[in-house]
């Protein structure tokens, strides 16, 4: 089964005929951090993946900031535009 990863984009082969959550565990990816995409659909953690499936694990994390807020002027030290 082909798994497409992003940032940077790359592909890995893993054994199929297993549930999504087992594949994520093998790749050491937390379910909370990705969308699991097959074709035009999202798939839930309990679904069985076939050996000929192609799935994309799209990261959902964005943003970045190391700043502290500007005192007094209501900034917050997070990304501004999500």
């Amino acid at each position, binding site marked *: 089964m082909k798994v497409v990863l992003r940032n940077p984009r790359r592909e890995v082969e893993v054994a199929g005929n297993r549930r999504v959550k087992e594949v994520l565990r093998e790749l050491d990816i937390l379910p909370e951090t990705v969308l699991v995409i097959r074709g035009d659909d999202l798939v839930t953690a*309990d679904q069985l993946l076939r050996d000929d499936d192609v799935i994309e694990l799209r*990261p959902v*994390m964005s*943003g*970045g900031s*190391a700043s502290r807020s500007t005192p*007094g002027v209501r900034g917050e030290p997070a990304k501004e*535009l999500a």
Partner: protein
Amino acid sequence: MKCRKCGASATIELRRHNAAFCVDDYLEFFRNQVREAIRKHRMFTRDERVLVAVSGGKDSLALWDVLIDDGYDTTGLYLDLGIFDYSVESKAKCEAFAARRGARLLVSRVADEVGGPVPVIKQVTRRPPCSGCGLSKRYLMNRVALDHGLPVVATGHNLDDEAATLFGSVMHWRTEALPRQSPALASTHPKLVRRVKPLYRLSERETAAYAFLRRIDYIVEECPFAAGATSIAHKEVLNRMEDASPGAKHNFLFGFLDKARAAFERLEDVTLQECARCGQVTTSTVCAFCKLADQVKRAAGSGAPAPDR
């Protein structure tokens, strides 16, 4: 896995809600969370014009999508940070979205306002790039809203963003930052517009799922300067806690908002005044944005900073 509402095959599971939804019921769940945020914090009404700050990412475009569908009078604002191909692509995503939805999009270039794009600001200030970038964005969002007579700016900050910011503030006990962490900040000065975060009830994965299911073409790549950012590290820590205990991020943020924030708000004692140079609001004589612009322009005069690309 079955949809909690209709019993059809589920497309997404939300462990923190102990629920799963089909596509249609998920989209409605998502919109209802945004509606609840707007209602609870009286963020804006349908009679007000809302400036939606968009980056081309999943959160801000998902937010704009929901607000347009719910009949709000919105204008998008894209701030061009000048971060190489990342900015070129993210701007194109915003323009394509605006064109598809027939929505108005304003564009402002950080380089025009500060004297250099974010890569130059990073080099000149020798501080983390997110620092000067965030400062510039906060300043420009407010000023553009004022210039166009819009009373409120909505940003796409989600539950993960807010929890990570809170975590960072608490880790360093930045008590001065805590009162300002809120889903809605009222206008406390005639030159400060209201600032609201209608997605604060929704996690990053939930906004990504909404954008994907709505077929919104957003930029998946991260900002090249985000790698190694402190907030990313905080998000990773929180996601490990979430994995072990679903709802941990929600409880952390909402517990603060419900039980702790008011105590820090009472401690805040800040005097706002207008910047002697640009007239925008600051606590000093000259605002941080003008100081940053001075620094960038001085460096440009000495030929120090690298070019845009």
